[in-house]
Structure formats: structure tokens, C-alpha cells
């Protein structure tokens, strides 16, 4: 690996970070605007044309607010909580393939930070770490509401990780690889051998389970029990103010972005789009269009997260646990068995 390659990787990492931060920033704007549209309102429209500068104004506000650390909070952990939350949110995007290879001059740029052969498991691990930010922050606040929020977050994440893992296993049985790049390559184009190539058409039940779990893992409504305002004031971030609160909120939006990217890659063909090699375009153009397609899919998923938020009311805690343990896990196991049977009979 030459110096130029390292430089390219470095630039790629910076670009991906910048993109995910900007997307997260504008997700806050989109959330408010979309919520407004769903409720027959206008939404933020004062800062700049159509309120387009609203996220900047919000960010400036977050930075300038007073920083409060409660007297009885455990100082270091109180700061470590939001830091871990945003760290785990950011590192998830490392294994996502953003596009095919791009040729610039003599250099071939792989639009993926790293293609480790346990890519899915890496994402899974990062997701399972994400709960630490919430738990540590909630515990360190030394507040009953925060602690309750943290405990809810922990049990919710652990419960839904299981069915998420099981739904992925059914997918892995079909793909036979753990590398996200290879999974994306397998879904090349849109139609081949008389069936869709995208995994969502091969694993509809698995996708349904996965998306429900993705909602639960990102703590989005209807599974936003760790921070539900009506019961727990602010949940785990009751005591937080200023940019530390901003980090928690930001981490949620980055998580949404990453989980949208994962869902697009695993089930919706990633950077593949229909007729990608029948248009007669050069490789680089196909790659760029593929990247745009991936981002279109991700934005659709982010929109879908918000759409559901303003449609479905929050679950009660026992309903949440019932759904996780009594419905999703048996469904996921049934999905694995069905997938196994189908594979066995088709291969015979």
C-alpha cells in the first residue's frame, strides 16, 4: 500500500465523515419539516430560504448554551456517555460499500473504507456497543428518570439484537458471505434468472424483522421508550444540556443514516440500480450513478423512519417486550428454517 493509497483512504474517510455529519445535521431539519407537512403545518421557514439554515442556527444554539454538570453526577462518565454515543454512531459507516470502483487517472479508488470479511458482524458489534453511550450517560446523571431510561435502553437493545441477528442469519444463508461488498455485488442489476436480484424480494420476512429491529436499535418511535417525554421527562438525557445533549441527538440521526445505509446495502441492492449496464455509460458514470442510487435509497429510509414516527404511537413497555421476544424471535427462527428448506430443495 503506497503513500498515495493511504492518502486516498484518508480523504475517503474524511468525506464519509463529513457526509454522515451533514446528513445527520439536515436530518434534524428534515425531521421538523416532514413532521410539519404530516401535520398540515409549514415547519421552520425563518432561517434562510425555506429555513434551510435552521440546522446551523440549532448547532450554534447548542454550542452556546450553558454547560451544566449536576453536582452529584459522576464527572468523567457524564462526559464519556455522549462521546461514546457519537463515536459508535460514526464508526458504523466504515464497512459500508458506497459504490463500485472509481478510476481517477491511474488510481483505482475503492469506494469503501475497508472491506473486512466479517463486515456484517462488525456493524452488529458497533450497534451492540451503541447502548453503552446511553447506559453510561443515564447512570452517570444520578437521576432516577435517566437511570430508568438507561435500563430501558439496555433491555430493549439486547432484546431486539437477537431477532436482528437471526434475521441476518437467514440472509447470510443465501449470500454465503459476511462481506458487505460481496453482498452488494451479488445483487447486481435488478433482474436476472427470472427473479429480482435484490435481497428484499428473496427475504421479505427477514427484511420486515430487520426493519422493525432497526427502529428499536436506533430508539426511534414507536420504540423510543428510553427517552419518552411523557413518562421519563427526557429519559437518559434528562440532565444533559448544551453540546452533550447535541451529541446524543446527533448520534440518533447518524444511527438512522447508517442503518438506512445497511438496509439499503443488505436488502435493496446497495449501489445497484435497474439497467445499470444497459445504458451504455462508462464505468465511472455507472459508479457515480450507483452512489446516487444508494443515497436515494438511504434518504428514502430516513424519510420512512420519520414517516413512521408521525404515524405509529409509542409502544407500552410490556408490548415492546412481547413483540421482541414472543413475535419477532419465533418469526425469525421460522424464517431461518424456511430459508434453509428452500435452499436445500432448490439446490437438489
Amino acid at each position, binding site marked *: 500500500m503506497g503513500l498515495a493509497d493511504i492518502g486516498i483512504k484518508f480523504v475517503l474517510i474524511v468525506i464519509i465523515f463529513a457526509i454522515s455529519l451533514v446528513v445527520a445535521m439536515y436530518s434534524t431539519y428534515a425531521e421538523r419539516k416532514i413532521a410539519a407537512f404530516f401535520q*398540515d403545518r*409549514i415547519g421552520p421557514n425563518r432561517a434562510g430560504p425555506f429555513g434551510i439554515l435552521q440546522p446551523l442556527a440549532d448547532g450554534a444554539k447548542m454550542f452556546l448554551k450553558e454547560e451544566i454538570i449536576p453536582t452529584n453526577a459522576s464527572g468523567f462518565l457524564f462526559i464519556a456517555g455522549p462521546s461514546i454515543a457519537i463515536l459508535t454512531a460514526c464508526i458504523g459507516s466504515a464497512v459500508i460499500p458506497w459504490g463500485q470502483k472509481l478510476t481517477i487517472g491511474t488510481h483505482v479508488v475503492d469506494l469503501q473504507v475497508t472491506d473486512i470479511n466479517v463486515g456484517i458482524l462488525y456493524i452488529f458489534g458497533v450497534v451492540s456497543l451503541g447502548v453503552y453511550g446511553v447506559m453510561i450517560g443515564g447512570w452517570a446523571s444520578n437521576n432516577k428518570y435517566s437511570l430508568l431510561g438507561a435500563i430501558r435502553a439496555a433491555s430493549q437493545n439486547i432484546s431486539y439484537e437477537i431477532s436482528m441477528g437471526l434475521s441476518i442469519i437467514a440472509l447470510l444463508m443465501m449470500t454465503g458471505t459476511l462481506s458487505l461488498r460481496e453482498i452488494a455485488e451479488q445483487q447486481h442489476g435488478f433482474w436476472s434468472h427470472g427473479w429480482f436480484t435484490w435481497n428484499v424480494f428473496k427475504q421479505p420476512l427477514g427484511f420486515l424483522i430487520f426493519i422493525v429491529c432497526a427502529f428499536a436499535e436506533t430508539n426511534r418511535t414507536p420504540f423510543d421508550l428510553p427517552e419518552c417525554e411523557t413518562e421519563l421527562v427526557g429519559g437518559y438525557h434528562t440532565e444533559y444540556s448544551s453540546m452533550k445533549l447535541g451529541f446524543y441527538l446527533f448520534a440518533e440521526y447518524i444511527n438512522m443514516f447508517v442503518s438506512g445505509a445497511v438496509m439499503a446495502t443488505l436488502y435493496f441492492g446497495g449501489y445497484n440500480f435497474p439497467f445499470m449496464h444497459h445504458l451504455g455509460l462508462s464505468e465511472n458514470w455507472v459508479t457515480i450513478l450507483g452512489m446516487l442510487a444508494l443515497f436515494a435509497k438511504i434518504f428514502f429510509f430516513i424519510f420512512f423512519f420519520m414517516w413512521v414516527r408521525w404515524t405509529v404511537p409509542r409502544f407500552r413497555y410490556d408490548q415492546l417486550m412481547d413483540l421482541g421476544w414472543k413475535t419477532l424471535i419465533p418469526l425469525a427462527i421460522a424464517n431461518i428454517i424456511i430459508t434453509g428448506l428452500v435452499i436445500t430443495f432448490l439446490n437438489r
Partner: protein
Amino acid sequence: MESLSNKRKEVESKPLNFWERIYLPSIFQGLGITMKHFFRKPVTVSFPEERREFSENFRGMHSLKRDEDGRERCTACGLCALSCPAEAITMIAAERQKGEENLYREEKYAAVYEINMLRCIFCGLCEEACPKEAIYLDGDYVPSEFLRKDFIYGKDKLVEAPLNQ
């Protein structure tokens, strides 16, 4: 019993069938409903630039009226203060002096007349109570202020502008 409005519906609690139990159809139905609203025209207006028309019987800020000669109609009888359920109105009466006939219609007038706009509930009972037709709630919204004391409106803000100006 026979229902009066014919709107009564018998509540059934049948066990849910399979499609109702998996909830997905109703979730998609809900998503459809919210999507319908997504494309609907907003019902809100951008307030300072656009304003909704007031209805004919809108009750806004109070104004103390003058008669056709430009004299204040209020005679400081105190009926408005008495009728006020929020006790927002106070006044100090004074006797009309010689030479002030063109200012005050009656022999007694309100030297100080104050309404606390934070207490006022805009019910319009003062309007009803006034025997001299001196007070009407025909103004705009009460504008916002930074200090509580600025919400206590004296005669400078309440009395109508003189006629010939």
C-alpha cells in the same frame, strides 16, 4: 334506550382475526393517512406577515370610547370593575372641573383607568356592564412585552384617539 342522536354505536369486542392481530394492515393504513396529509395544503398562516381575518364578534384589546363631540364617555361608575371575573380593572374617579366640559361628558370621570392585560380573560362582561357604552373590546391582540408591568394598560393606551386629529 332509544338513542336521541342516532349516532350511538354498539361497541363490539370480538377477538381479533389474523390480519388484525398482525397489525401490519392497519399500520400501512395509518401510513397512507399520514401520507395523504403530507400533500395537503398547510392550515397554518405565517403570522406576522399574513393575518387571519377576525370574526365579527372577536374580542380583542379594550378601548375607552369618546362621544360624538370627542368627550370621554366613561364616568368611573366602577360597574366594569365589579363585573370583571378576573378583577383586572381598577380605576380612580375624579370630579370634572370648570372648563373641562369638552373633555369629559359626565360630571365624574376616571382619572386613572387601568386594565391588567395578563389577568384579563377577554370575556366581554365589562362591555356588557357599562351603562355609558364607554368600553368595547374591539381592538387587536394584546402585543407581547418583556416586562410584566408593561401589560398594565393605562388610559394612554386605552382611550380612543381624539376625533379631530
